[in-house]
């Protein structure tokens, strides 16, 4: 098999150096709010063109996984996601920091990210071609139902009134329709703004929707956003490991959710972490604690989002279709290297692929000590920076981050417009997460619907197309389960209460 040879190749000094450097660079970039993993990969790709293929892949993979992890820093300490994948980490990470458990949260994030990343990479190593075959079985109709499933998560996110959450989701859906319709070619909701023809850019929207409202609120009071006194910057490693062991089911489940979501083309860390979060919350006995600083929340989101790194490479390498947004950019880098993706990649160019996968695994392992160390440093410095400097600094990062992905000024404008709008509706009681879900899932759901409609019509029965396919039926089952479970569980509690009264 020669698998050991590839591992040894991955351990070469150059590759190790790239892995280390990539993880450090990625973590730092991901930690800075506004600078996303996608941007990090986009900006650093040209530098990999002169490297050997395996080395280039290792460098990019290391940056990618470091960035996904790094996003947790800003999420926990600043309540702004460092990258879209860490949106859900703010839900419980920041409250933990406010309670004085910021260092614990950071350590948990690091450990969970490493475990999640390893599980995702493990699937990539062992099961890539078969899993890719599974991905092929997902047709347009399945994606439609998946999109709907994602939208039902809005109900279970439970921030504030459910109706307002659904309205927010609807708003997000509307935003996703801006631009030229993929099927049919209608130009929708564009008016005279030709810049909107390409639709609302998801990354800019995410940066705007999450970072700008937080930025605006930062200036409201002179109180430091985190009290420096309360934070004792230690590792609390023992404590963290204890919590992790208690939550091992959560950890495993979230990592697998992350891997699977990563495999599905188009869905990335942000969706994975939201799904994992909501599933963990739903199944937890401590449901009421979520959102107020529950460690399980951080564990779920951080393991899921790092699992998407490995998972996302599966369709990218096997099918040539990007599993997650950064994968789209990595595909470009692969093409320049002359690597043609496809099932033959694993057989004809096995050395490159397997060396890369081992390198990814190594990078993930390196993330453990590196992450903990950087975490401690970041912790001390972020808490100590005076707010007055923090605000312009973060603002600059949001502008840079939204510009640098596509080098497009319009995206900066989208970012600020959506951000200010989000703050506005936030004041009215509509939170950002449902809007984001609507935006990301709207495209997936609509595309699936319209294509499914066309295919179903051609095959003679649209109803059969949508309802009679095995995978679709499974997804529909989960949707129904998800919608009725909270009601059912609450009813059981009430009945039990009445019986005992």
């Amino acid at each position: 098999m020669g698998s050991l040879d590839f591992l040894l190749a991955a351990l070469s000094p150059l590759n190790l150096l790239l892995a280390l450097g990539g993880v450090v660079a990625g973590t730092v970039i991901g930690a800075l709010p506004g600078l996303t993993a996608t941007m990090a990969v986009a900006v650093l790709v040209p530098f990999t063109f002169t490297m050997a293929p395996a080395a280039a892949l290792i460098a990019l993979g290391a940056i990618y996984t470091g960035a996904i992890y790094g996003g947790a820093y800003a999420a926990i300490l600043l309540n702004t996601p460092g990258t879209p994948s860490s949106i859900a980490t703010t839900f419980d990470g920041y409250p933990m920091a406010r309670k004085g458990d910021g260092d614990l949260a950071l350590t948990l994030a690091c450990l969970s990210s490493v475990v999640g990343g390893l599980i995702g990479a493990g699937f990539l190593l062992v099961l890539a071609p078969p899993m890719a075959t599974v991905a092929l079985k997902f047709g347009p109709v399945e994606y439609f139902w998946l999109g709907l499933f994602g939208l039902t998560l809005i109900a279970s996110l439970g921030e504030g009134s459910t109706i307002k959450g659904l309205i927010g989701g609807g708003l997000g859906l509307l935003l996703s329709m801006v631009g030229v319709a993929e099927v049919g070619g209608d130009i929708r909701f564009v008016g005279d703004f030709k810049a909107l023809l390409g639709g609302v850019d998801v990354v800019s929207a995410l940066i705007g929707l999450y970072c700008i409202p937080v930025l605006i609120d930062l200036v409201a009071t002179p109180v430091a956003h985190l009290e420096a006194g309360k934070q004792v910057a230690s590792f609390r490693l023992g404590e963290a490991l204890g919590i992790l062991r208690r939550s091992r089911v959560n950890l495993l489940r979230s990592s697998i959710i992350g891997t699977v979501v990563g495999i599905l083309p188009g869905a990335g860390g942000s969706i994975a972490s939201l799904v994992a979060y909501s599933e963990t919350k739903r199944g937890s006995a401590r449901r009421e604690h979520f959102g107020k600083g529950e460690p399980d929340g951080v564990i779920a989101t951080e393991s899921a989002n790092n699992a998407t790194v490995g998972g996302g490479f599966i369709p990218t390498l096997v099918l040539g279709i990007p599993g997650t947004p950064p994968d789209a950019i990595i595909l470009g880098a692969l093409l320049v290297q002359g690597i043609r993706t496809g099932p033959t990649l694993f057989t004809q160019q096995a050395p490159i692929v397997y060396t890369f996968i081992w390198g990814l695994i190594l990078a993930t392992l390196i993330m453990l000590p590196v992450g903990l160390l950087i975490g401690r440093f970041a912790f001390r410095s972020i808490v100590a920076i005076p707010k007055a400097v923090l605000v312009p600094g973060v603002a600059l990062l949001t502008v840079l981050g939204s510009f640098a992905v596509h080098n497009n000024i319009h995206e900066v404008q989208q970012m600020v417009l959506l951000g200010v709008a989000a703050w506005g509706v936030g004041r009215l009681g509509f939170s950002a997460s449902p809007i984001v879900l609507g935006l990301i899932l709207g495209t997936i759901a609509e595309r699936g619907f319209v294509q499914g409609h066309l295919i179903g019509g051609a095959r003679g029965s649209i109803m059969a197309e949508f309802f009679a396919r095995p995978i679709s039926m499974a997804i529909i089952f989960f949707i129904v389960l998800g919608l009725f479970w909270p009601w059912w569980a609450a009813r059981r509690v009430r009945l039990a209460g009445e019986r005992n009264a």
Partner: protein
Amino acid sequence: MPEIRPDIPGAIGSALMVLLGAGAIWAARDYSDLGAVFPRTVGALLVALGSVYILLVLIGRTRRATGSDGSSMRRTLVAVVMLAWGFTLGPLGFLPSGAAAMAALLLIAQHGRWTLRTALLYGLSTSVILFGMYALFKLALQVPLP
């Protein structure tokens, strides 16, 4: 006992959403059959849900989220500065618009008194951040900043 105060802001927001939903349905009348399905559905959803919420507010079954404290003036100023930055980035270029915006934000964010020391320290560190990021992106990473 949670205070049952009518959620007026929520109602206003919902009214806005109803308008948006109606707008979507109206805009969709020009679209092809398949292209109009989602806009119409989502528009209808927004109108329906928004109306339901307004109804809930009227019959008094909503809860108003606790108001936020702190200076609304400063918040609004930040929003304005960010918008201005987004739209002057092109015409003015990265460094000029960035310097102006960051200086403005610095002034807005500082609550305490300005001493010579704080002015120098903050001004310097902000400038370092600005020029540092500029150098990093434009020179090291070859990103074509405006």
